[in-house]
């Protein structure tokens, strides 16, 4: 591998982003562009008994008003399926405006299209809808007496109950120390700063182009094509820059299809942008949930039993729970284990992915409970983790593809200054502030798509290369990292390679979700680039006019675009010389990666890390300030140290938000979110955020994918909230078992 792989290079899209030149999906001012605005249901449950569009229809500039009475029926009922698998990826098994039933507040009931956005927004307020409201369930507490264990969750891919190991009830009964604690979590919304947006354009051959803010252009293409009854060949998706997602744009919701239907109706390009309030009703959320943890341990803290049960609210038509049990189930060497999901049906859109899906809540519960256990038996919290460390995946007994967790603990403890910590709660004071420290482990599964992942590399006769794959850039740094992977594979300088993504015209890559994007895309890009390099080397050794004629290809290396013998570097020639001599304007190769199966061919595949936090709590006011965060992670190979650390930092700060700020509160009387704005849904701002210390431990991994890339999108958030809550306990002696922790909890 060349030094370009992993180097902390500037983002290739940096200039476009700092000058405002980068165009996002709602920023194409096409000729004759019209604007669609959705009208959401005001009630959470019932039927539409009357809908009056007369005023709206005659308002200035209005082109059409569509309701369930006249919107065309979709060609197929959507089926929820995670986009990682490369197929249709509907966010829920329901499409609005097909009949008069209201399942949740904010469900689209009408769509106004006008010549300007102001006129469309105004006309949307003129649509009169009357409802026959029926009783609703919008809080977990309201559905608590009607919970059920689903046969499957996660689009039917995971069982509702995890495989049981041994006899956990006996394990708990026989344990010297037992803990039985319940943790509650507020609903969370992703709130990317760019709202979900689609611009739909039909051409004169009835082909549809969607400029869509999405984590997976192909996911949008296949999902919309299915709903419209079109072959995928007739739907093209363009998605170059996406203004953040965090799961909101991971699956495909109704608005791209509604934009397409609106555009077809008015015969003009249509832009549909969700309002900030609509973002709370339209793209799923992290569900309100409760998790109960039972721990049984011996006097030394070695776990004999782990029981982990989750109860959460889902929609009327999908069995969705974020997969909170998966990471905790394999974190420690507990001899026995049981865990399962229970669901209650409610008047909600189907919940969905939110950064660190599952693990961010599940590991809060486990790592809070582990801290409680550490205090119960009087062992240092880090020492307790080490005593329960497992060198195999405890759910299968298989080895890990790679781990690196011990190194993360050690490095994190050094960077933080953990050793010598006085464990007594409330013992450290700094003026008005009580100061405490806490730590937690982090784990997140390494997933891969099911379908082959493709990329294409083309080199021109001047020695420059373009490498392409159909991904979008939503802040991960993928454009930059993939340029590095391509430069490494081709043996070219970084600035001679351009990586292009952003449309479904390019080789197919699954949506970048679940931290799998960098692994999937880098694999395809690596194979395309090294494939093209090998092809050119092969051509050189077969070429009687080449200095490398008849050389052994295995003995040839490529540096800065020049192929030469490893043992005799003066013997060689450049790509340019080879191509020009043979009158070849360009040469091309396709890279195809068949992903590693989910069982890793007999390996457990997880990313691990360690989180440390220092907080100060105002003794009188209950204010919590996070003073320091240290996170050390082992994400396999790091493709760009700077962008990877930035993403890990962002994840940790999401953990800070989860711990102390973020909650979407349901008003059960109206059945609507009570704080659906960025003024009322609190996210971390600059003043909330301390400087963050990040380090990565690069453990080689030959199982997960060709370059051993495990991803950095989620692992940063996992465990941060537990480290902060554990630090709050250390500062105050108070154990808060719900998130977020607010001033009221600590007064």
């Amino acid at each position, binding site marked *: 591998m060349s030094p370009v792989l992993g180097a902390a290079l500037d983002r290739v899209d940096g200039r476009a982003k700092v000058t405002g030149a980068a165009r996002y999906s709602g920023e194409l001012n096409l000729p004759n562009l019209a604007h669609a605005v959705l009208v959401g249901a005001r009630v959470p449950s019932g039927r539409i008994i009357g809908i009056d569009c007369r005023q709206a229809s005659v308002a200035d500039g209005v082109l059409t008003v569509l309701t369930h009475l006249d919107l065309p029926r979709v060609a197929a009922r959507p089926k929820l399926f995670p986009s990682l698998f490369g197929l249709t990826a509907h966010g829920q098994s329901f499409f609005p405006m097909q009949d008069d039933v209201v399942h949740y507040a904010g469900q689209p009931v009408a769509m106004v299209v006008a010549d300007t956005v102001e006129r469309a927004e105004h006309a949307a307020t003129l649509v009169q809808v009357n409802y026959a409201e029926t009783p609703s369930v919008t809080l977990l507490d309201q559905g608590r007496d009607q919970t059920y264990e689903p046969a499957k969750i996660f689009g039917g891919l995971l069982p509702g109950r995890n495989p049981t190991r041994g006899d956990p009830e006996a394990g708990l009964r026989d344990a010297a120390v037992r803990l039985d604690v319940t943790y509650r979590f507020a609903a969370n919304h992703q709130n990317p700063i760019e709202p979900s947006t689609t611009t739909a354009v039909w051409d004169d051959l009835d082909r549809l182009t969607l400029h869509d803010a999405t984590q997976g252009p192909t996911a949008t293409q296949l999902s919309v094509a299915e709903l419209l009854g079109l072959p995928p060949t007739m739907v093209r998706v363009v998605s170059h820059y996406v*203004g953040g997602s965090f799961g909101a744009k991971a699956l495909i919701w109704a608005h791209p299809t509604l934009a397409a239907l609106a555009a077809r109706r008015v015969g003009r390009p249509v832009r549909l942008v969700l309002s*900030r309030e609509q973002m709370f009703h339209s793209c799923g959320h992290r569900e309100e949930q409760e998790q109960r943890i039972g721990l049984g341990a011996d006097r030394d803290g070695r776990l004999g039993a782990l029981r982990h049960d989750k109860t959460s609210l889902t929609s009327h038509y999908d069995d969705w729970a974020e997969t909170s049990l998966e990471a905790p189930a394999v974190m420690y060497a507990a001899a026995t284990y049981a865990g399962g999901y229970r669901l209650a049906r409610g008047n909600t859109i189907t919940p969905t992915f939110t950064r660190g899906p599952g693990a961010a809540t599940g590991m809060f519960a486990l790592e809070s409970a582990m801290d409680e256990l550490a205090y119960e038996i009087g062992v240092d919290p880090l020492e307790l983790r080490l005593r329960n460390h497992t060198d195999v995946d405890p759910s299968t007994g298989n080895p890990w593809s790679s781990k690196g967790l011990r190194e993360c603990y050690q490095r994190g403890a050094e960077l933080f200054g953990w050793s010598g910590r006085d464990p007594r709660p409330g013992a450290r004071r700094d003026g008005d502030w009580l100061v405490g420290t806490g730590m937690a482990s982090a784990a997140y599964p390494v997933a891969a798509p099911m379908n082959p992942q493709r990329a294409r590399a083309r080199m021109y006769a001047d020695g420059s290369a373009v490498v392409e794959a159909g991904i979008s850039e939503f802040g991960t740094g993928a454009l930059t990292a993939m340029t590095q992977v391509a430069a490494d594979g081709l043996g070219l300088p970084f600035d001679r390679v351009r990586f292009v993504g952003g449309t479904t015209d390019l080789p197919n890559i699954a949506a970048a979700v679940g931290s799998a994007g960098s692994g999937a895309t880098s694999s395809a890009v690596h194979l395309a680039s090294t494939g093209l390099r090998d092809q050119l080397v092969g051509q050189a050794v077969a070429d009687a006019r080449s200095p490398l004629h008849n050389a052994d290809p295995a003995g040839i290396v490529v540096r800065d675009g020049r192929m030469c013998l490893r043992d005799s570097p003066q013997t060689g020639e450049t790509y340019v010389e080879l191509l020009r001599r043979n009158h070849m304007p360009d040469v091309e190769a396709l890279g195809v990666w068949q992903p590693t199966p989910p069982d890793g061919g007999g390996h457990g595949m997880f990313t691990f890390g360690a989180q440390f936090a220092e907080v100060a709590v105002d003794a009188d006011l209950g204010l919590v300030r996070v003073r320091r965060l240290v996170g050390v992670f082992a994400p396999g190979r790091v493709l760009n140290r700077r962008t990877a650390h930035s993403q890990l930092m962002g994840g940790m700060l999401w953990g800070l938000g989860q711990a102390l700020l973020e909650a979407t509160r349901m008003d059960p009387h109206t059945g609507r979110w009570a704080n659906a704005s960025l003024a009322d849904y609190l996210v971390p701002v600059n003043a909330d955020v301390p400087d963050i210390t990040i380090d990565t431990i690069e453990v080689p991994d030959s199982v997960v994918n060709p370059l051993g890339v495990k991803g950095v999108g989620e692992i940063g958030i996992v465990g941060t909230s537990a480290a902060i809550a554990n630090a709050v306990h250390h500062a105050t002696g108070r154990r808060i078992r719900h998130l977020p922790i607010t001033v009221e909890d600590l007064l």
Partner: protein
Amino acid sequence: MKSYAETAGAVEVADTAVVRGPNAVVVRLSVNGTIRNILVEPRVSLLDALRDRLDLTGTKKGCNQGACGACTVWVDRRRVLACLTLAITCETREVTTIEGLSDGVHLHPMQQAFISQDAFQCGYCTPGQIMSAVAFLAEGHAADDAQIREWMSGNICRCAAYPNIRAAIRQVRDEAGTSGPDAAG
């Protein structure tokens, strides 16, 4: 790009005694040193005028409610939220957007510092962050990190690049030697 001082005299004062609207009227804006006439209803925000009518899409719409700061531009060199400002109220003023911050060839030092410090990820809040950062630094509010944290808290970055945003502002401050209130320009 012309400076405000060069262009201010060129902007004619609108006659406020005349009732205009509610139908579309010609609104005369000076944006980034260029006079532009647009036909818009008086209810059109400065943000939508910039993005939809003038094709200056560098200014972003994140919430349209004045909560996120993504639409931060300068009106007469002062930071305003373009989503809460009507375009028609800016007729006698000079509007500066991210597109006007540099000449398109040489980056403003703050733009370069944002790249060097990796002070963004998705980039959607970035123009607003930069417009805030340049203005509040010039006002002399960046003496230390505590000040930077406070003064930059009107701009939400959901990717949470905040520590790197502070590093970028420190870099520009220290390179320019405008370290605090005494150095305010």
